[in-house]
């Protein structure tokens, strides 16, 4: 999430406080379905004021509170006191705001429209430079007020850091309580959770379609592993791979036109491509070993996967059009679960060392290898769509929990849900 200060282009970032808080500081930001704990902060944090939105009390959502929590949880911002009456039409007294220690200020309103919707407006100012950085008006249904607040946080984040925000994206994951398995979808802040599927049998490997409308996943509800695809909004679902043996590890191509799956129909787990409707099946790996966990590169031309053809599980890649697989990981005897960053430059994966399973990142151009977690039971890494965060599953205090980390491992958040095991996270795309 952090860019080194010398690469900043935005003037508002000149006065970022250096080392404002000691790394390792722990505090709680948001509660509800998840408790989010942040540990560590960036070397620099931008102080920003977010005034209470005019009429937000009547809307039923604390819009400014959601914006503040989003910005603070990113680790890149520090929230400063912003009491007082302001909205997007105000002319802030820059000297006064500089006195409060703010570099930037957000204010807005949420007026109820005649048709019942809300007209959510905001404006962002660079207090240091004394300039107006623009704003936006969003007319939304009451049910989308949270989304509107996340969109404002995204816009502020992008204006001030130069990177797209992921606050308005969604995350899918699986919870387990005794023998109840639930596939859930939540806002990226862990709130507003909704259930996509309930089952008494395990659910694993959810995968978002690139348009964010469908989830493919593996359900054991019929007594074995079958790949399903489900329309998130309507709940319509169908079994798209239900062959003899096990069917698993669905991955969407970037254009949404193809699914890669692992099937054991020909006697051993191999990787196949198919249409999302279930037709046009063709096998793309030909080995006498385990081949599984396919994932497409962002350009769709290559598939990364796991194979034990060399005697231990390692990550390989093969052209989607067919060709000879090439080994990618060489360090360690157990490397699985590849995930590629949206720019295709970084691969996150799980490395086993003794009894420790840890998220690693590998620079696919330069070859630099980095451990980014401080836990030892890590699974299922996936990138946020802006490429700045990785979400993964791990164990903490006897529970399955979810963590997010920046790519440099400096800022981590732990998503805690009390009394529930949480696993199999997958970050959804932009564009909800």
């Amino acid at each position: 999430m952090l860019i080194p200060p010398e690469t900043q282009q935005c003037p508002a970032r000149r006065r970022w406080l250096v080392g404002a808080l000691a790394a390792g500081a722990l505090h709680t930001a948001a509660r509800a379905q998840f408790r989010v704990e942040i540990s560590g902060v960036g070397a620099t944090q931008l102080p920003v004021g977010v005034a209470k939105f005019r009429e937000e009390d009547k809307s039923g959502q604390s819009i400014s509170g959601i914006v503040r929590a989003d910005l603070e949880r990113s680790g890149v911002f520090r929230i400063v006191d912003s009491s007082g009456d302001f909205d997007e039409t105000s002319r802030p007294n820059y000297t006064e705001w500089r006195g409060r220690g703010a570099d930037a200020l957000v204010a807005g309103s949420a007026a109820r429209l005649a048709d019942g919707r809300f007209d959510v407006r905001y404006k962002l100012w660079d207090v240091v430079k004394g300039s107006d950085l623009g704003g936006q008006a969003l007319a939304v249904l009451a049910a989308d007020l949270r989304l509107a607040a996340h969109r404002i946080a995204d816009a502020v984040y992008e204006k001030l850091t130069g990177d797209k925000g992921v606050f308005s994206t969604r995350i899918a994951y699986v919870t387990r309580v005794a023998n109840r398995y639930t596939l859930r979808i939540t806002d990226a802040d862990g709130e507003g959770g909704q259930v996509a599927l309930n089952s008494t049998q395990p659910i694993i490997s959810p995968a978002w379609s690139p348009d964010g409308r469908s989830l493919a996943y593996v359900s054991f509800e019929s007594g074995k592993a079958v790949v399903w695809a489900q329309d998130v909004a309507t709940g319509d679902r169908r079994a798209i791979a239900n062959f003899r043996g096990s069917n698993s590890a669905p991955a969407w191509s970037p254009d949404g036109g193809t699914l890669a799956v692992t099937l054991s129909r020909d006697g051993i787990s191999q990787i196949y491509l198919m249409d999302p409707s279930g037709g046009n099946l063709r096998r793309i790996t030909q080995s006498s070993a385990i081949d599984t966990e396919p994932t497409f590169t962002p350009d769709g031309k290559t598939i990364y996967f796991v194979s034990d053809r060399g005697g231990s599980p390692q990550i390989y890649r093969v052209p989607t059009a067919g060709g000879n697989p090439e080994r990618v990981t060489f360090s360690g005897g157990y490397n699985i679960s590849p995930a590629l960053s949206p720019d295709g430059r970084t691969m996150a994966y799980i490395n086993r060392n003794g009894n420790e399973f840890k998220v690693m990142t590998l620079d696919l151009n330069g070859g630099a290898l980095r451990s980014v977690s401080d836990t030892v039971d890590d699974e299922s890494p996936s990138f946020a769509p802006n490429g700045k965060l990785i979400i993964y599953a791990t164990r903490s205090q006897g529970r399955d929990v979810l963590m997010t980390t920046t790519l440099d491992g400096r800022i981590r958040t732990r998503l805690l849900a009390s009394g529930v095991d949480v696993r199999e996270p997958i970050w959804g795309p932009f564009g909800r």
Partner: protein
Amino acid sequence: MNHFRTSLCAALICAGLAGCGSSVKLDDAAPVVDAKPTPAGGAGAGAKGGASTAQSAVTTVDASKIDPTAAGNLGRVVYFDFDSYVLKDEFRPLIEGYARVLSASKSKKMVIEGHTDERGGREYNLALGQRRAEAVAKSLVLLGASDSQIEAVSFGKERPAVDGHDEAAWAKNRRAELKDR
């Protein structure tokens, strides 16, 4: 009055359900069914079961699925080493026994479920469990069973036989289970 009637009905339905609810599941560890003859009908029959056993209740026991050749002594579980799908010699008699059963009775079908311990990724473990199940299935076919009689599937690490986070638990979870269909 209405209230009373509703709850009386509910009580009767409950009693009826309880009386019919005892099904007998058949597998190797089949519960021992007490074979003592019970007095046929009569006023005294209700004394032991009390109100929960309807006097006309009949519990069906299906003996047609009991296979005299397979039942009992072969065992149903094959264990594996860590990250391995090599069949150990000690399980040869078990595999040979089921191969004989299957080749003698071509209408018999079995499912082989592969499992792993909790360590590592869910998908790799699913594939590893599949490999274990396939290893058992392949041996059965080599020894005379036909391919169409068996399906190898995997639950990976999703269904441990034993809870626990040590080698003793892990060793019991790295397994393939042979089940009748």
